[in-house]
């Protein structure tokens, strides 16, 4: 059962504690910007040449957004679970009306807002640096919000499995980096062997990439990808909330 006042209190506190950590704020926004600057502006693309980074710049927009939509929730939620567990906060919270689902939802809300800002900055830098203007749309907002929700659920699972914050970061990287490269983000599927395609299809990031690409290219028919992403988000959120520990 969702307990709204407790959820709001948790979300407000999570937001406060994040924005007061200057290094966390800086690196949350600088990391994706570096990627955009490197691959969007410094690396010269040559559309049609057939190699890496030879697609039109707009092709890579899902990849740039995936950096923040995937990495930020995975590492932040995973590390937050470890911090809460080490400080016995879950133990105390278990005697309050805040359920484990409330806790995860509260931190998911914070991540949606945070990643929303980061995505806006990424798109702004992309526009300034490459001239590619991606107009905000309902579809884009929905994909970002649902994508963040899914990776918050996965982050909670990682937080349960890993025993330290270092472990969470390592696990997040192990999970995210292959997806960032292969889930129809930076490497077009035609460059991968045919036998690998089924793996691409089952990557949780793939519906995000396909849907966002359709949205930014102005196409229709992204509803199916959004629905699939939403189902995955719900499944991982439920599993993640269930796995949140009560005690160390």
């Amino acid at each position, binding site marked *: 059962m969702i307990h709204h006042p407790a959820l709001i*209190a948790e979300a407000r506190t999570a937001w406060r*504690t994040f924005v007061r950590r200057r290094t966390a704020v800086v690196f949350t926004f600088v990391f994706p910007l570096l990627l955009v600057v490197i691959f969007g502006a410094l690396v010269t693309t040559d559309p049609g040449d057939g190699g890496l980074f030879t697609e039109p710049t707009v092709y890579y927009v899902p990849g740039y957004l995936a950096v923040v939509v995937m990495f930020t929730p995975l590492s932040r939620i995973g590390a937050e679970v470890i911090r809460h567990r080490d400080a016995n*906060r879950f133990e*105390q*919270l*278990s*005697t*309050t*009306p805040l359920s484990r689902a409330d806790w995860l939802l509260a931190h998911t809300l914070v991540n949606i807002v945070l990643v929303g800002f980061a995505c806006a900055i990424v798109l702004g830098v992309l526009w300034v640096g490459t001239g590619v203007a991606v107009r905000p749309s309902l579809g884009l907002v929905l994909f970002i919000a649902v994508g963040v929700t899914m990776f918050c659920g996965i982050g909670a699972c990682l937080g349960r499995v890993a025993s330290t914050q270092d472990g969470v970061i390592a696990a997040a990287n192990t999970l995210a980096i292959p997806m960032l490269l292969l889930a129809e983000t930076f490497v077009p599927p035609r460059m991968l062997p045919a036998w690998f395609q089924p793996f691409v299809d089952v990557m949780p990031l793939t519906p995000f990439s396909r849907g966002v690409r359709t949205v930014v290219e102005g196409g229709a028919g992204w509803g199916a990808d959004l629905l699939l992403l939403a189902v995955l988000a719900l499944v991982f959120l439920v599993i993640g909330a269930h796995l949140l520990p009560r005690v160390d």
Partner: protein
Amino acid sequence: MEPAVAIEDVSHRYGDVDALRSVSLTVPAGEIVGLIGPNGAGKTTLVRIMCGVIKPMTGAVTVFGHEPRDLDPGAIGLLPQAFSPPGRLTGRELIQYYRDLSGASRSVDDVLAAVGMTAADDRWYERLSGGQQRRLCVGSAIVNDPKLVVLDEPTTGIDPAGRQRIWSLLKQLRDDGHTIVVTTHDMAEAAALSDRVALLAGGALVAVDHPDALIDRHGGTARVRIEPAEPLAPEVIDDLAVDVSSHNGTYELVGLEPYQLADVIGTLATAGVSFRRITWQEPTLEDVYHELAGNSK
């Protein structure tokens, strides 16, 4: 009157380790009960079971007549062992956070005043002293005005003045009708604070009673400690006519009645023994602890 906590034949294991073995304990409403025992005795496990954080493998626990997890969440205020709250929040924001979490009616100012933190309410938690931090943590456990307050080592790291303040607060809460369970390694604290003390050792409840009753039963007799200027000669020790043990130049005389103290001093004076210090020591809860749990692991 319905007990605040009723624990019946509770056992719990972690892997191959027996954390609790057939523990039964009743905590009457409106009392302070101190849980003492060596590290690994099962105190924290019992606290967690009492609060519904974990379920016992066998046995039953009720808090105010209900299973802990069926209680209104605001009924219990828990301060876990080695707890630290979210950082980058001021003392006031922290108490406000826990107040908002529980939807409590108790004001933030009231809680800050109760734990003596009004003057430092605008400083970030991590910039407070260890004692101030711990007092805020206690505040986080009572902000929801719970009927049962469970504090796992609440005074660890607090200076004597701060500890006294926490004791006064807990006694005030008890006088207001709250039930309080406190774990501690400080026997003086347990004796000063508790209406009853429960001693756990090796996962079993070894004794439970009023501190004075436990001391009467298990504390042994009073002792006299003598620190002579020179080691006592064997014939002087014989003349004392009581059990004497020595350690690092200090002699401990056991089994004396108060009126025999004059005889001891007289014997030493007759033998020409000068001494730096002579002290009379009544048995304490620490003696009970060593007697009943001293060798347990």
